[in-house]
């Protein structure tokens, strides 16, 4: 049994389906409107595939004005809207409902402006994350937040979730890399927030919008900060006999004044799964592995790595493997970035995303292992060690409903543990439907009510992505 609840679809809406579709057809051309069941199947779920719901209709507008017209149309008809990018959300953030219209931004995928002097690029938000970096690569720049899903996920989804990635330790997450956005509000009003300058004075609604999971409006354009590509970058692999040693090594590197571009952790099960898939040359006889990458000229990289290796040696590192070529570097990262895909080949899994204070790492890893074992399941851990953002992958059998229920229960226990030790429910994947009912563990009623009031300032009728983020009970409106 899957046990995340969806609200009961509003029959007064579903009964008016034909009429609503006709109204939508009045504001967008036929090619932008998807209503046939078999064609809507692709929009039924996202990367939280255990849950799926058929939408009322799907609209893929081609311009901000069309998004606005569709929003106004839905507003007038009193229909719920689910904004969608590429549908790679792991939290169920983009899953629709029978009484809701999906508005997808995938056709909005143009680069609008590249401003070298300001180091910014302005894009439509249906563009994929990797296409942004590709667009500025010939000019010697890249877009820093790099979710592992970057080949598919969109800037709109990244803004929706405030996504991160392996390289965020040095360059920050999405909200640190967006200067301005164009947004369509629930009634179709088009507004600009932020701008093309740094820290535009005034109330910072931009920062509020980023990570709002499609509940405040649909973002159609964004001006993004781009960063000059480093002269070079090279990772080193460390194998340890225990996760305690690996954790202590991470802390010591930071204490030594070094902030690498990335510090990624994998435990033994994750190493085995990724190595079998990517043939990355990971050591198979260690309990914990770190991938640490530094940037700069060859000489700078050598010097940084020498410092880091000396620290690792003082913390009992057993295997040290430096990348010797671009190919080896690519393989090392391929192993890490395909961790979810590779895990999906050996078992069904749910991916947790809590963050903990890094000092709690050894304790949490131990407890987490006990929790999962207590449910008779297995877990593989990959995570961003520099910032304590865990990704325990709980393995289960999706054909066995009880197994899935156990996996979800174990996941919930892990997230509660993250909050207990001073962390949070989600570091980068978002709340969606997945963690919606756990919000009360992290926030008091007053905290949540404040968020609900702010949400209502944008969408008083709860039309935008309504079943997400906030517990269904106790909503103010």
């Amino acid at each position: 049994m899957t046990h995340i609840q969806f609200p009961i679809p509003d029959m007064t809406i579903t009964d008016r389906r034909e009429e609503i579709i006709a109204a939508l057809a009045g504001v967008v051309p036929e090619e932008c409107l998807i209503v046939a069941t078999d064609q809507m199947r692709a929009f039924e779920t996202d990367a939280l595939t255990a849950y799926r719901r058929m939408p009322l209709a799907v609209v893929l507008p081609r311009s901000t004005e069309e998004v606005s017209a569709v929003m106004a149309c839905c507003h007038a008809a009193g229909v719920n809207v689910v904004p969608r990018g590429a549908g790679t959300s792991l939290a169920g953030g983009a899953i629709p409902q029978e009484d809701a219209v999906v508005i997808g931004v995938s056709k909005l995928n143009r680069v609008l402006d590249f401003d070298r002097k300001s180091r910014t690029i302005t894009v439509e938000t249906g563009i994929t994350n990797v296409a942004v970096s590709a667009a500025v690569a010939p000019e010697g720049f890249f877009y820093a937040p790099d979710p592992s899903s970057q080949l598919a996920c969109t800037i709109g989804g990244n803004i929706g979730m405030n996504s991160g990635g392996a390289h965020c330790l040095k360059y920050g997450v999405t909200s640190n890399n967006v200067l301005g956005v164009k947004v369509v509000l629930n009634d179709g009003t088009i507004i600009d927030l932020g701008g093309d300058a740094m820290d535009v004075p005034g109330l910072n609604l931009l920062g509020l919008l980023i990570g709002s999971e499609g509940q405040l409006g649909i973002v159609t354009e964004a001006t993004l900060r781009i960063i000059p590509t480093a002269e070079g970058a090279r990772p080193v692999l460390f194998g340890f006999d225990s996760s305690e040693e690996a954790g202590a090594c991470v802390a010591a590197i930071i204490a030594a004044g070094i902030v690498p571009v990335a510090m990624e952790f994998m435990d033994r099960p994750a190493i085995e799964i990724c190595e079998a898939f990517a043939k990355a040359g990971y050591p198979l006889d260690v309990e914990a592995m770190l991938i640490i990458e530094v940037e700069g000229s060859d000489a700078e990289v050598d010097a940084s790595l020498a410092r880091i290796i000396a620290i690792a040696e003082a913390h009992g590192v057993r295997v040290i493997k430096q990348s010797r070529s671009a190919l080896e570097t690519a393989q090392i990262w391929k192993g890490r970035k395909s961790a979810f895909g590779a895990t999906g080949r050996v078992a069904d899994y749910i991916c947790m995303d809590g963050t903990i204070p890094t000092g709690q790492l050894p304790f949490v890893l131990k407890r987490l292992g006990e929790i999962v074992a207590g449910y008779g399941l297995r877990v593989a851990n990959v995570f961003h060690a520099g910032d304590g953002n865990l990704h325990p992958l709980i393995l289960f059998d999706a054909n066995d409903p009880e197994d899935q229920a156990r996996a979800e229960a174990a996941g919930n226990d892990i997230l509660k543990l993250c909050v207990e030790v001073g962390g949070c429910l989600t570091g980068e994947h978002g709340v969606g439907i997945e963690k919606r009912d756990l919000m009360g563990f992290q926030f008091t009623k007053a905290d949540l009510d404040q968020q609900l009031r702010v949400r209502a300032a944008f969408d008083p009728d709860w039309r935008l992505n309504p079943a997400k983020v906030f517990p269904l009970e106790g909503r103010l409106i």
Partner: protein
Amino acid sequence: MSTLYVPASEDELAELVSRAAGTGERFAIRGGATRGAIGGRAEGSELTTTGLSGITLYEPAEMVIAARAGTPLAEVEAALADKGQMLPFEPMDHRGLLGTEGTPTIGALAAANISGPRRVAAGSARDHLIGIRMVNGRGEIIKSGGRVTKNVTGLDLVKLNAGACGTLGVLTEVTFKVLPRPQSAVTLAARGLAPEGALTALADALATPFEVSAAAYIEAADAEPSMTLVRIEGFSESCAYRSERLSELLAHHGAFAPVGDEEGAKNWRRVGNARDFAAPNCAAVLRVHVAPSKAPSILELAQRLEARVMADWGGGLIWLGLGADASVEAAMAGIAERGGHPMVVRCAADTDWPLIGPGRAVAELGKRVKAAFDPQALFNPGVLAGYL
């Protein structure tokens, strides 16, 4: 006579606000009162956070520090320096520019989003603010964010409050992400560049992979030639390499040569704190946030207004000092026309220049967001006027 409140605890503050909700009393929120009227002058009983003081959490290995809002900034910086760390955004000190006295507090850095030269590379105060506790206009104590950097749980009220200048509530505790202090710094200076050429040099410098941590232009004044400055920070051998490569790459703009450590540090304080713009040098001081590609047109306007100028953030932040006869209104309009966002930081004592508003739809939203926190508009009336 106006009242002064100095609540000694979060609970006491919450009670004070709850009581006020029925009485029509309004609050002008202050930290150390060193930063003048950022965002506009507030009216009401003075409420200062200085009674809420002390570092509540510092974990150097996790690069995180938390302190009650009224904690003196100096106390936080000393604690960080003791462990070889720092606030990455190099906050501006307004005292020289505004002629204020007192002790800057950590809470104001968050509330007013106060950054300095390193902002161009490392990000702003807002970028490093990861958690807040606050009292809202209902007298409720609420929190958002926390002590971990990676956190997307719920709406980001942290980023919203950073720069809201106390219009949504009184921050009681703030948590910042910090960074290791760089082992060394090299400042390269080129003298005598014309404004347009200097801005191009800064943009070129920031587009290199050499991790320029600050980039500024100080115009010629009196007998002094103009100064174009870039800074590199990190481990010393790496600084040496990068600064050498950078001066080669910038050579066609002018001779960029290293200055001594002390002179370098002094120059960055001069840029970051905008002391040159203090009275009586300038009658009014404007700070302009602008896309660096549009900075040349702002400098050209400044020349026409015979204003004193300085550019920081590679042209993304421009300081403009107006003489006594120049019209603030005309300067604001001209800046806005050129795509800049002006903010009056200091002007004649009896005038007040609110920010240029954001347009009707955004202002409406702003009003509703304000009401969501502070339904009776108890806090900082007059501040961010056009936005709320």
